[in-house]
């Protein structure tokens, strides 16, 4: 979230509560109830690392800390904007588990695959239910559509793994 916070503060700066509001407005119900503590500790870290500078001002009811970007913060933000986020992941939690657990002979691969297929189908159901509900913003909707595509790809991959396992069994 560090870079996202830098981006949100890049204009006129702001304080923690404003960041929380901006995020909630964009992602709506997709965002879990944001813990104010998480926001303030992220801001504190950014300040410690010299990327933002905070100043305490008197608010309506209590003091609040207003943050803005330092020069180092602006270059960090520029680097983040310029670089594409990493592409293909060569890391998959399920696959690592499958390989380690089955090569140690601790479980049948098919049992793991079936449990995982159920989980992917269930997440697809959860996501589609969310899409069917009204009143989402465009950003939230696209985010969910993306997750749907990933879930479908994960299911296809499971099929592929299962097919290869079956072929391997037939060979032996």
């Amino acid at each position, binding site marked *: *979230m560090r870079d996202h916070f830098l981006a949100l503060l890049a204009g006129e700066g702001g304080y923690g509560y404003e960041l929380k509001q901006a995020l909630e407005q964009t*992602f709506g119900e*997709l*965002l*879990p109830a*944001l*813990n104010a503590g*998480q926001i303030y*500790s*992220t801001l*504190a*870290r950014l300040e410690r690392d010299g990327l933002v500078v905070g100043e305490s001002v008197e608010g309506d009811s209590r003091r609040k800390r207003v943050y803005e970007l330092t020069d180092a913060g602006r270059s960090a933000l520029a680097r983040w904007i310029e670089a594409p986020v990493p592409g293909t992941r060569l890391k998959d939690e399920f696959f690592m588990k499958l390989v380690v657990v089955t090569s140690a002979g601790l479980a049948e691969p098919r049992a793991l695959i*079936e449990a995982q*297929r*159920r989980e*992917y*189908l*269930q*997440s*697809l*159901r*959860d*996501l*589609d*239910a*969310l*899409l*069917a509900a009204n009143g989402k913003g465009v950003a939230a909707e696209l*985010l*969910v559509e993306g*997750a*749907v595509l990933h*879930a*479908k790809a994960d*299911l296809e991959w499971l*099929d592929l793994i299962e*097919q290869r396992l*079956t072929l391997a069994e037939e060979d032996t």
Partner: protein
Amino acid sequence: MTYVLEARGLAKTYDTGGAEVLALRGVDLAVERGEFLAIMGPSGSGKSTLLNLLAGLDRPTAGEVRLDGDRIDRLSETELARLRRRKIGFVFQFFNLVPNLSVLENVELPLLLSGRGRKQARASAVELLSELGVGDKRAVAPALLSGGQQQRVALARALANTPGIVLGDEPTGNLDSAAAREVLALLRAARERGRTLLVVTHDARVAAAADRVVTLRDGLVSDETELEPARPVALPFESAERP
């Protein structure tokens, strides 16, 4: 309890010029009233064969099929046709609407065939078409509609005789993703209104909308899973502690 549709030890062997192909090798399956069941599986796993046997469109080599508790696998063609008209609605991948009939006439057809009067058939067809969002296309020929609209009409036709079960064969297989999503929403809505659905599909999204997903592999049920009502979804929020 009586299942809407039930298969026991269902097997089907095709004789393809000397070589026997085991399309189904003993499938047990039971569909409860009000349930949405999806059948998945790779090509050649026996999905279509199973659907044809369940619908009484083909006869099993072994095993039995019961519709509302009564065996249908030994009925005559005429009896089967009558039963299908009254108790089963069909939705196909390529819609299978009658091209030289209007949208309205397509939906009226099963009602008239099952003995409903003209007036009553028209009233029900009109109502169903508007329920499915194609009420304004009544007079149009099916070919002039988009795929999604044609599938809406096909679903109206399938529901016309308030069948005990609707069978779907890749109902989103020939639709772009937006139309597929609309058809999926209609299937889900039919399920909400207490309809019983059994759908053969490649589309994981359709399967994920079902209450139960059965996977076939090499003519056998290889996996069966029940899904829960949708759970809430939330973005993971990275904790500030992480590097």
